[in-house]
């Protein structure tokens, strides 16, 4: 098991954002956190990454993570692609990619991997000198994912990667994510679009009002009526 979350609670001042969350992620899996807007998925992702203070336990590769240590967590292989992509809009595409390897010491190898990134994601190669803020939403999402991969994560957290994207680009992004499994990368995916998420995930946890209300194999959840009943307008 690469990640286990026990009794996670996150408060925004006096307002509870996460009431009680328990789930786990096995190595090599794609695990989806699904639920409506405001269910607590992004808050969970940000707390695990180290951007929000939390109560409870987050155990990553056998070690308890202390809250608010995003830099240390990244160094240990836990990378987040945040909701809204988190592109550094004033930097060029290439500078954004270099920021992906900010903590890496093997800079020569990083350069090689950036070149390989341009081959894998051709649009980034074409726009390498362009300002990242001028990319389309889909291109920014590809850049955000490519940047996170350059940190060589062991666990990649993707928060709403399809947010604001056209259906064709959403499909392309999910194709990329399902490829990660073949490379042995573990993915924790938070998404409102449960249909897409359940199609590529191994297991899923359904969030509602800051709690997990259902969990199981992604295929079982996709076939059942629970999700439809819980998220009616969102499926």
């Amino acid at each position: 098991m690469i990640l286990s979350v026990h009794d996670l609670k996150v408060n925004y001042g006096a307002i509870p954002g996460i009431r009680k969350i328990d789930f786990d992620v096995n190595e090599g899996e794609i695990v989806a956190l699904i639920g409506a807007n405001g269910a607590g998925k992004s808050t969970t992702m940000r707390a695990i990454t180290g951007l929000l203070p939390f109560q409870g336990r987050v155990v990553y590769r056998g070690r308890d993570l202390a809250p608010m240590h995003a830099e240390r967590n990244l160094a240990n292989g836990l990378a987040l692609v945040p909701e809204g992509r988190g592109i550094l809009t004033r930097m060029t595409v290439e500078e954004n990619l270099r920021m992906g390897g900010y903590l890496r010491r093997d800079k020569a190898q990083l350069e090689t991997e950036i070149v390989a990134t341009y081959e894998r994601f051709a649009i980034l190669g074409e726009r390498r000198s362009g300002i990242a803020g001028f990319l389309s939403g889909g291109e920014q999402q590809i850049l955000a994912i490519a940047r996170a991969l350059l940190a060589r994560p062991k666990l990649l957290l993707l928060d709403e990667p399809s947010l604001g994207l056209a259906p064709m680009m959403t499909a392309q992004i999910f194709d990329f994510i399902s490829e990660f499994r073949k490379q042995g990368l573990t993915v924790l995916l938070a998404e409102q679009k449960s249909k897409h998420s359940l199609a590529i995930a191994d297991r899923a946890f359904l969030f509602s009002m800051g709690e997990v209300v259902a969990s199981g194999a992604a295929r079982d959840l996709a076939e059942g009526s629970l999700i439809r009943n819980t998220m009616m307008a969102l499926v």
Partner: protein
Amino acid sequence: MGVSIFIQQVLNGLTLGAVYTLIALAFSLVMGILGILNLAISEIFMIGAFIGFSLIMSGVPVWLALPGAMAVAAVISMVIARIGYEPLRNASHITPMLSTLGFSMILQNFATNTWGSDPMQLTLEGWLDTRFHFGLVSLSVVQIVVFAVTLGLCVLTALLIQRTDIGRGLRAVAENRDVSRILGVRPRRMILVAFALSGLLAGAAGVLVGLHYSVITPYIGVDIGLKAIAVMIVGGATNIWGALLAGPIIGILEVLTVAYGGAAMRDFIVYGMMIAILLVRPQGLLGGSSKTSGGRV
């Protein structure tokens, strides 16, 4: 005769502008990356001048006195970052600014108590006292040193900001603190780096002003520091390269005003230009969408 005097004034203005550029760059680094006006920079510049003077007067060569004064100025700036800025980072914009104002008063008081309030003079000797004459126009070695050091520091700063991991880290923190953190940048460390760089530049400017005028007082920070703020505003308060353009403009404008309009008109013209820029183009000549500018962290 008239043309020679004009060229001489332009050269003098460029020298003054070079010093303004360095101090304005020091202001802009903190302003552009952290979004606050560090008012202590004027006095860090003054302390740099006194440290440089003291080292040179005690026999330390200029090429060692310059980095020595820069290092002291950087340390002072980092102390201000830790004590005067970091604990107040989440307060309103005015709070850390007032804190830096308090530090500037302390630094001026320290200088008055340490070196006295009378002007301190330096007699330039040897190669530093050399002047080159081109007809009626002359250029001193000190002026060449001022140009060379300013240009060198500006190029190094540009390379650091644009081409290194530290520079990218600074810009990442300026743009989005949370995103910078998930990329492995430590914002507190970057804030310290910004203040240190700012101190290095202000300290260098202090030594150069001391060499150029050969006389300093604990009060030089106020006058020259305010001019540097004007340079920063004219160039673009959140664009660290605006200072490169506005420094020479203000320097030449000031010197030409004194030469042809009288010293009494000097501040009227310089600050009048600053106000005009604020009214017509508040973002400054180069302010706006630069990738080196940013909001408050």
